C-alpha cells in the first residue's frame, strides 16, 4: 500500500486513474444493460397480457368466468397454459358456438397476434405448457418408423391407424388428423383438449412427439401415397367390403342385364 500511495504523484497516475474509471463505468454499463432489455421484454409481455385480457373479457369471460376461474358453462382456465389456448382458439374450436357433446373445429376468428395475446393472458393466470417452437414440432430429423410404433401404441385406438379419426361415446368423436397444423398436433398431445387424454413430456418425451408428427404427415398428408388407390377413407375392411359388394356386384348385375336385354336377332322385336 505504501508503495502505491508513494507513487500517487507519478506523472502516469492520472492515466491509471482514468483507465480504472473507464473500466468501472464500462463494467457497470455491461452489468445493467441486459437488465434494461429484460425490462423492455416484460413491458411488451405485460402489454400483451393487457391486450389479451381485453379480448378475453369480450370473447371468453361469459363461459370461463371473469378471472378464468370457470363457471357452469366452461372449465377453469387457470393452469391450462398458452399451448391450450393456441390449440383451442387457433383451430377455431373456441370460442364455442353452442354447448354440445363436443366442440367442433370451425373457422378461426382471431388473428395469430390476438391468439398470442390471449394465450399470454391465460398463461399469466397459472403456469401451464407454453406454445411449442417450430423446432419442437417440425418433422425434420424425426424417425418416422418409430413414430408409427408410438402412434399405434398411443393414438390409433381413437384416431384410426392412419389418423382418419373415429367415433367415441355419446356423439363424441376423435377428429381426422388430415391437414392439421403440426403445431396444433403437438399442443393437443401436450394439453389433452376436451376428452382427449394428454401425453405430457414426462411420459412421451419431445423427440417422440416429433416422430409421431412426422408419421402422421407421412401417412395422412396432402400427398401421402395410397399404394392401392381409392382408399375409401382409409377405414379398413368394412368400407372396402361394402364398396365391393355394392359397386362390384352391382356392376356385374348391370352388365348381365344389359347383355340379356339386347337381342341378337336380325329382326328386332
Amino acid at each position, binding site marked *: 500500500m505504501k508503495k502505491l500511495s508513494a507513487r500517487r504523484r507519478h506523472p502516469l497516475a492520472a492515466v491509471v486513474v482514468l483507465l480504472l474509471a473507464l473500466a468501472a463505468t464500462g463494467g457497470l454499463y455491461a452489468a445493467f444493460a441486459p437488465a434494461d432489455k429484460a425490462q423492455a421484454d416484460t413491458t411488451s409481455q405485460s402489454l400483451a397480457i393487457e391486450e389479451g385480457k381485453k379480448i378475453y373479457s369480450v370473447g371468453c369471460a361469459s363461459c370461463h368466468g371473469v378471472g378464468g376461474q370457470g363457471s357452469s358453462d366452461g372449465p377453469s382456465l387457470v393452469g391450462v397454459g398458452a399451448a391450450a389456448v393456441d390449440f383451442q382458439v387457433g383451430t377455431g374450436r373456441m370460442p364455442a358456438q353452442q354447448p354440445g357433446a363436443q366442440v367442433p373445429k370451425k373457422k378461426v376468428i382471431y388473428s395469430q397476434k390476438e391468439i398470442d395475446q390471449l394465450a399470454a393472458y391465460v398463461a399469466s393466470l397459472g403456469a401451464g405448457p407454453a406454445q411449442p417452437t417450430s423446432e419442437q414440432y417440425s418433422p425434420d430429423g424425426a424417425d418416422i418408423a418409430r413414430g408409427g410404433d*408410438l402412434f399405434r*401404441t*398411443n393414438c390409433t*385406438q*381413437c384416431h384410426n391407424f392412419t389418423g382418419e379419426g*373415429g367415433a*367415441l*361415446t355419446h356423439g*363424441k368423436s*376423435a377428429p381426422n388428423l388430415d391437414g392439421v397444423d403440426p403445431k396444433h398436433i403437438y399442443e393437443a398431445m401436450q394439453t*389433452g383438449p*376436451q*376428452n*382427449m*387424454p*394428454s*401425453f*405430457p413430456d*414426462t*411420459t*412421451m*418425451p419431445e423427440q*417422440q412427439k416429433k416422430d409421431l408428427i412426422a408419421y402422421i404427415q407421412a401417412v395422412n398428408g396432402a*400427398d*401421402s*401415397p*395410397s*399404394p*392401392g*388407390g*381409392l382408399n375409401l377413407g382409409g377405414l379398413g375392411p368394412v368400407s372396402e367390403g361394402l364398396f365391393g359388394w355394392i359397386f362390384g356386384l352391382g356392376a356385374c348385375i348391370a352388365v348381365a342385364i344389359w*347383355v340379356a336385354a339386347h337381342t*341378337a*336377332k*336380325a*329382326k328386332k*322385336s
Partner: protein
Amino acid sequence: MSSQEIPEEENLPSAQEPGHGGAVERADDPFADPGLPAHQPRIQDIDERAAKRSERVVAFLFLLSMLATVAFIASFVAFPVDKIVYIWPLGHISILNFSLGVTLGVALFCIGAGAVHWARTLMSDVEMTDERHPIAATPEVKAKVLADFAAGASESGFGRRKLIRNTMFGALAFVPLSGVVLLRDLGPLPEKKLRSTLWAKGKQLINMNTLEPLRPEDVVVGSLTFAMPEGLEEDSEEFQVEIAKAALMIVRIQPDDIKDKRELDWSHQGIVAFSKICTHVGCPISLYEQQTHHVLCPCHQSTFDLSDGARVLFGPAGHALPQLRIGVNGEGNLEALGDFEEPVGPAFWERG
C-alpha cells in the same frame, strides 16, 4: 299404333303362326297354349359376311386378353414395388399395383366378353324342348330289389348271429374316437395360463413409450399412459403372449372423483392401473375420454367407467376391467403390489 286400332282377329291365337313346340289345338279356345314363337334368325345366320365379322371380333377379344397377360408379366418385371405415380382420379398410387390390376382385369374381361359374344352371335340359338318324364322305377324293378335285399339279409345271418352284429356296431362306434383324439393335438392344455399374468409383487411399471420405469410425478391428471411389467423385453420370444395379458392402462383421476372405495385403495394418489384387455372377447381397449373417465371398446362398444371401479356402463362385456394394485417402491418408481386378483380378459368356462 294404339291397341284400339289392331283388328280384332290379329289378337286371337288362331291368327298367330304356329311355333315349333306345339300346334294350336282348338282355334276357338282363347286360352290355348300358343306354343313357342317362330324361330327368328340372327343376322349372322343369314349373312355369311356378318358371321365372319363376329368371328373376327371374338378372336380379337381373345387376342387382346393374351396381350394383356403379356403386359401383366411385363409390368411385374418392369416396375419396382415402391414406385408411386399420380394417376387421376386415383391420386398417388403404386404403379405396380395399378398396372397389375388393369392388365389382369383386361385379360379376364376379354375372355368373358369374347365367350359371351361367341355364344350370342355364332353358336346355335335354335330353341329346344326337353320333355320331363317321371323318374320312379317300374313296380317289377322295385319288387326285385326288395326281394334281393331280404335274401341277402337272411343269407348273411345278420339277425341270427347276434355276437357278430354287436361287435360290428362296437367297431363302427369306436373308429370315430380316433378323430376326436387327434383334436388333442391342437395344442397343450391352457392349464393355469389364463389365470395369471406377469405382474407380481414388486414388479415396476415400465412406460411403453420410453421403456423407463414410471414415476408417480410423470403421470398427470388427464393423461393416458401404457405400461408393461419390468423385465419383459419387446424383442423376446414370449413378448406377444405376455403383453396380451399384462398390458396396462394408467390414468390419474382426482382422488375425490373416484367413486369406488376399493379402486381408491388400490390406486396411488389417484393413479389407477387397469387391464387394457376388454372383458368381452379381449380386444385391446384404450379409447379413454379424460373428462368423463369412460373407456370405450372399439370392437363391440362396451363402455367402462374408470372412476367407478371400471364398472360396465354399456355393451356386451360381462364384468368390470380388472384393476392392478399399485404403490411406490424405495426408488420412487411405481410398482405392482401383486398380480391381478382375477383373470384378465374374456370369461372362460372354468373361470368360476
